Structures are given as C-alpha cells and as structure tokens.
C-alpha cells in the first residue's frame, strides 16, 4: 500500500472544529457582542477626545484629521487583540485544562486539522468584528475614502497572522502565570507600532525596529487601503503577514502534535 504524506496544514475536516466552536459559543453570545462594542468605544473615545486636540496629519502629502489617521491603526490593533486573546487564552484552556482536543483526536480529525480549525474560527470572528468596525468608521466619518472597504480583507489578514502566531505561542505557556508574558509582548507592540502617530516621528534606529513589528506592517497597510493610497510595498507588507501566519501555523501544528500525541 503506498504511503501517503499527511497534509502539512490540515484538511477539510478542520471545518468541524469551526462548527464546534460556533456551537459552544452560541451559549456565550454576550462575549461575541462585546467584540462589536470594543471598536465603537475605541473610535468614539478618539473621535470625541483626541480629534479636537490634535491637528491635521499629513499622510503621503494628503492632510487628514487625526481620527481618520488613527482609525486604521485601531482596526489593526483590534484585529490583533481579538485574534491573540482567542488563540492564546481559549486554546490554552482547551489544550491543557478541559482536554477538549483529546476527545477530538479520538475521531478522524488530525492534530493539524485542530490547529487549522482554530484559525478558521479566529478568521470568522475577525471578519465579523472588522466589518462592524469599518461600518463604525464610515458612520463616524473616519473613513478616508471609499477604498476603506478593502480594510476588511486587510484586517482579516492581520487576524490570520496574529491568530497563527498566538496559537504557536500558546503551546509554550505552562501555567496561567505565563499570560503576563503575553501582555509583556502585546502592550509594547500596541504602543510602539506607529498606530497612534507616524513612524517618521521615531528616531531612525527605533523606526527600524518598529518596521519589523507585524502590527506596524498591518496598521500601515490598512491606512494605505483606507485612504486609497496604493503602492507596491503593500504587496510586501501583505506577504510578510502571510509568511508569519504560515510559520506560526506550522510551529503550532508541530507543538500540538508533541503535546497531544506524545
């Protein structure tokens, strides 16, 4: 009988994990609802507050008000946070506490299907949140151009990268104490990724470090899309996020296999 290579990143069966999560979260709809309000709070606080204090900002020669400048950065941040929280906290619980995955592996599902299934779920949630965020942007007048609709796939791509990275990171977490480490990474990423102000304001050396940050790449990509300012670097930024996603998913699958089927 010919040996068959197992698929590297899971199969169609991974969709069953998505189905399972949707079923379980149906009873926790309040949590889903909070995902709708979070972006609204972000935008309102900034729109009402900072927008009046900060003047217009020049983005590639175009002057935009602060809320329009910062909204895509907030969208990127929200996509990151949503993806990380779900893939790190909830996956850790299922991996090490409730042993949900052990039951799943007693079915035709493989470890790779489980990892990929969690990513599908993160993407579904990301798609819902990003859509509601973009609708809020438009309603509050923070959309820089009609191209803002392209922020939707852009934000989903961001969630893709961060959920895969989070899934990989989650497998290294030993106990609840280690979650402080997650915050330790997440917070500087949030504060130093040119989400609040242009990267040109950083000293050159710090700017070089910031440009490696996936959140910076995402925020800049989304800003360009929102304002309809397209350039070829966007392809590079997208590719960077895609590569991070696949590296994360690959590491996560391998670590899942080590933990779940020793």
């Amino acid at each position, binding site marked *: *009988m010919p040996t068959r290579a197992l698929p590297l990143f899971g199969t169609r*069966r991974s969709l069953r994990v998505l189905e*399972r999560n949707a*079923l379980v979260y149906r009873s*926790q709809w309040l949590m889903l609802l909070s995902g709708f309000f979070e972006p609204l709070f972000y935008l309102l606080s900034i729109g009402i507050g900072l927008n009046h204090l900060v003047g217009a900002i020049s983005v590639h020669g175009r002057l935009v008000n602060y809320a329009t400048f910062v909204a895509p950065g907030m969208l990127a941040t929200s996509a990151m946070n949503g993806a990380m929280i779900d893939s790190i906290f909830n996956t850790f619980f299922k991996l090490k506490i409730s042993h949900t995955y052990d*039951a799943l592996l007693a*079915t*035709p*599902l493989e470890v790779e299907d489980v990892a990929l299934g969690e990513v599908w779920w993160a993407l579904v949630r990301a798609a819902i949140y990003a859509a509601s965020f973009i609708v809020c942007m438009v309603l509050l007048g923070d959309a820089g151009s009609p191209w803002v609709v392209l922020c939707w796939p852009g934000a989903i791509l961001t969630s893709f990268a961060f959920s895969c990275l989070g899934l990989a990171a989650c497998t290294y977490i030993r106990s609840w104490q280690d979650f402080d480490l997650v915050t330790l990474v997440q917070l500087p990423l949030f504060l130093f990724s040119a989400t609040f102000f242009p990267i040109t304001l950083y000293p050159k050396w710090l700017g070089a470090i910031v440009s490696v940050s996936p959140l910076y790449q995402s925020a800049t990509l989304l800003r360009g899309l929102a304002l309809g300012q397209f350039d070829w670097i966007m392809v590079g930024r997208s590719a960077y996020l895609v590569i991070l996603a696949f590296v994360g998913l690959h590491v996560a699958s391998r670590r899942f296999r080590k933990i779940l089927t*020793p």
Partner: protein
Amino acid sequence: MTNDYVLEARRLVKRFGDFEAVRGIDLSIERGESFGFLGPNGAGKTSTMRMISAVSQPTEGTITIFGLDPSTHGPEIRQRLGIVPQEDSLELELSVRLNLEMFGRYFDLPRRVVRERATELLEFTQLSERANEKVDNLSGGMKRRLTIARGLINRPEILILDEPTTGLDPQARHLLWDRLYRLKREGVTLIITTHYMDEAEQLCDRLVVMDRGTIVAEGAPRSLIDRYSTREVVELRFASDNHEAFHDRLAPFAERLEILPDRVLLYVHEGDATLREIHASGITPSSALVRRSSLEDVFLHLTGRSLSD
C-alpha cells in the same frame, strides 16, 4: 482459512524519553472478540490503548488495524473505531444531546443521521430524560455512560474502552456491563483495560495480563486461573502482625502460599478440607475464608504483587 484479525501488533514499544512504558508486546485480536488488558496502574495499558486507537505512534514495532497502517491511515482507521478514554473530556458547556450530535459531526455524518443516532444512544444508555441538560449537572456514572454513547455515534466496528468503570458505584458498573454485553452480542469487537478482576472475568473472552510494560500471561480468564492458580483459596488472618512466622507451619497444607501484609493465602484444591486440617493441627487463625480462585490470584502469582498496589 486465515483468522479474521481486526488488529495485529508486533514487537510494540513505546518510550517517553528514558522511560519505556511498553516493552515489545505482540497482540492479535479477532473480529467480534472481547479482549482485555489487565494490570495495575503504570503497567503500560493506557500507552498501549493509545497506540491501538491510532492516536499515538509506537516508538518501535508495527501495528495494523483493519489491515491498515495507523501512521498513514489514522483518519480512515479512527472513522471505524469507538474510543472511550479514561478521561471523559465532554463538552461541559453543551447539553447531553448536543455532545453526541457534535461528536457525530466529526465523523462527517449528516445532521439528520446524528440526530437519529443521538436519540437511539440516549435511549440505550438510559440518558433520554437528561437529554437537554448541561453535562456539568450529570453524575459521574451518567458522564461515563455519555462518553460511551459518544464512542458509539459512528457505529464502530471496534469499541476501545480505557478503565470504563473506574470510580463508579456498583449499580452504575452493572448497568455499563449490561450495555457492553449487548454490544458484544451485536458483533462489536470490544477492547477493554481494567484493573478490576471481576470486570475482566465478566466481560472478556480473552485477556492479557500486563506488568511493567510487558505481557506476562495470555488466555481466557478461566484458563488463566486453571493454569496459574488452584481451584480454591483459603484466606487466613491472624491476631499477630507477623504473618511470616506462620509460613513454615502452613506450607505443608497448600500447593503454594502467599504471605500478604494483612493475610495469608493458601492455594489448595479443597478449601474446606484444608481448613479442617489446619484447625485440627492446632493453628487458630482469627478469621478464615474459603473462596474460588480469581484473576487476582493469577496476577499475584505472576507478579508477586497484588493489583491494588
């Protein structure tokens, strides 16, 4: 005619770092058979079960299930297996019924089919009245029954149960045994691990005794008892703590003697006759019991330890 083996394993080894949990075991299990692994905790039963469930890979050796290699055909094999692990790992947030329905979906069964089967299985495991309750509210015995129902949702050809009745009260155990008998009658191959002697004697056509990662004996429960023990056992307790002191005095009465911390076991053919002889010789135990040999005695004979150690 060749035998209809659903599972064959040769020289199976499982290592975790330096620790060798399974040390080269051979197995052949026939279709429709009810096969048991008996042994104390740490004997390598669960590691073996995980390998024959096509969940974990052996470190060495070969295994075929339904004639397929689990390292390349894991999903196809598990599609035809029912696995009841030691840990229930049920979905506590979901209702009893939804636990079954969702599990059926992992096997790619259509929603209509899983709904029908869930209803049947709830009936079979006597959980129909609790169908819409959250799993969290169920008792240990009910959770165990639900886990077994879950393992049956894909109508498996082999049902693999790891310690199915550990932690259950006698009533719950007997209900489970009854359900397992019925499955056996329907032609389902059962593979069971247990450290309960009575369970192994009740359920298994054939079993292997495992100790420290190896198989130390194999056969039908009755034939193992015939081979490794006498027909009856006399259990004596003495007021003195030093049971060893009675060894030389009791040895002539029995084919074999086991001195345990709390009692002395004499392996004999006619328990009552032996007991009369002992009393006649002036030995006065504080209590005496004559019983038939069990798998417990087989295990004691083979390993020098009792199963509960």
